[in-house]
């Protein structure tokens, strides 16, 4: 036996009885050092995830089961986030704050503002020049901005996404959002059923260290159109329309996969299934549906003036919705700040196709 081995063997024997008291005493001595109030930032880099556009801890568009921030089960940690997505016809700005309590509960608030462009301007223009459209449609010929407040809460039910590497049990959380879209008139025009609604989700997240990969799956129970930016559900609001309506929530699948390439860097992909409440639905300009608008425009006989063509007007007035995808790259130089650069592929958004563009996000944690 080397002296090391002897030391190890004897120390193993002594361990139980004698040290307990000493450690308790020293523990008390040092605990003031270790526990400075409620504040805690003891998680490992990036394990708190980043922040979604809805404000929840997770990836870019999909909430994870992780509790946002760097707090462990022994404390509280907060964060501020700002996300900017630059799409061909919109730009999304989303900013707010999160607080994680004891790695158990997460509360969040986010304000989204979405300046719109082009086709919204077209609709605004049509609404302005059409005889018979009176009152506020919520869409101007320019600078129409959609705004939404998102309040979120999440509770971790069980599991540890990071350390239970020898078990199949993932980290599981449930959460919800209450979304309050401020543009009621606009949502009437787009024929959404509601401007305010809640969503609920279950998120299942696990890190597989042997393959340096995080996998997260979320089921979201919602009636949102484009995350709620164009309201919730569908309700025919045209005069003389069929009066149809559908605002029943449905379960939608979301997936995030991230590869960890360094202790401070991850890249990955996300998918979020979207609904089709407003897919193929036209607009309503204070009672005038797409068909009515088209015939009213035909009456104006703009085409014959040779100045404008109304050929594509029906297309421009028909809404669409696609599932969302993104590729992201997350970098956390330290526990105070992280950055996400992503390429978001959001497809048809309401009145505009091919909304693919860059997404930048920063998350300050303290």
């Amino acid at each position: 036996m080397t002296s090391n081995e002897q030391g190890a063997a004897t120390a193993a024997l002594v361990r139980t009885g004698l040290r307990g008291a000493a450690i308790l005493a020293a523990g008390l001595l040092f605990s003031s050092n270790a526990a400075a109030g409620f504040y805690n930032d003891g998680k490992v880099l990036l394990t708190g995830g980043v922040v979604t556009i809805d404000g929840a801890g997770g990836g870019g568009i999909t909430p994870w089961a992780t509790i946002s921030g760097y707090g462990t089960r022994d404390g509280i940690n907060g964060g501020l986030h700002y996300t900017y997505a630059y799409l061909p016809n919109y730009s999304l700005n989303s900013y707010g704050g999160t607080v994680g309590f004891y790695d158990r509960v997460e509360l969040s608030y986010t304000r989204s503002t979405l300046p719109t462009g082009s086709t919204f301007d077209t609709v605004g223009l049509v609404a302005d020049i059409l005889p018979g459209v009176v009152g506020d449609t919520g869409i101007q010929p320019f600078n129409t901005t959609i705004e939404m407040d998102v309040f979120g809460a999440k509770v971790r039910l069980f599991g540890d996404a990071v350390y239970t590497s020898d078990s199949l049990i993932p980290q599981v959380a449930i959460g919800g959002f209450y979304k309050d879209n401020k543009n009621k008139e606009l949502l009437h025009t787009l024929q959404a059923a509601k401007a305010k609604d809640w969503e609920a989700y279950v998120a299942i997240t696990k890190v597989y260290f042997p393959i340096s990969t995080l996998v997260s799956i979320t089921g979201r129970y919602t009636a949102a159109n484009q995350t709620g930016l164009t309201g919730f559900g569908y309700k025919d609001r045209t005069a003389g329309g069929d009066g149809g309506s559908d605002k029943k929530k449905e379960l939608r699948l979301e997936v995030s996969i991230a590869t960890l390439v360094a202790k401070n860097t991850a890249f990955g992909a996300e998918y979020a299934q979207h609904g089709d409440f407003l897919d193929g639905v036209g607009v309503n300009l204070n009672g005038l549906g797409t068909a009515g608008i088209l015939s009213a425009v035909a009456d104006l006989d703009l085409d014959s003036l040779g100045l404008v063509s109304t050929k594509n007007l029906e297309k421009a007035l028909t809404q669409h919705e696609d599932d969302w995808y993104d590729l992201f790259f997350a970098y956390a130089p330290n526990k105070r700040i992280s950055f996400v650069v992503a390429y978001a592929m959001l497809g048809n958004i309401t009145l505009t196709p091919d909304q693919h563009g860059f997404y930048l996000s920063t998350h300050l944690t303290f």
Partner: protein
Amino acid sequence: MKNKSVIATVLAAGLCSAAAMQSAMAGESKTKPIPGIPSNSLELFGGKQVVHEWAVALFYYIMLDRRINWMFREFGNPERQIFLNTQLETMVLGGPNEYQGASMAAAHADLNINMEQFNAVVEAAYNACERVNIHYWTCNQLIAALAPFTDDIVTR
């Protein structure tokens, strides 16, 4: 050390049952991360010699981290722990089980370790990998293989 040996002998002689309990708690066995780590993980790491170098670097970083170094100064013994950690990590990476120390539960039972302190050791482990030039993905094989001890070590 001498004092400890004497006390140990007395304890071992006097409290047979305690000694028997202790020996039942001694040792550790290989962990089973999912999906498994590559069978050549130890080789990727550079073999037992590099595991030892890694453990030296680990304690270098641990002893510099004010969140945890006091605990090791008070209750640990870096030299012995480097020796035992080399054995333990060699084993979990796929090498032979030559680990002579206590089980993780027994070794940390009355240290009252919390999650932040555990994570501090994990951060030191990553820093040590970087210091010894072990690829991040290979380092994660070690993290995967040690992670199952979390609940044995974190008692608070």
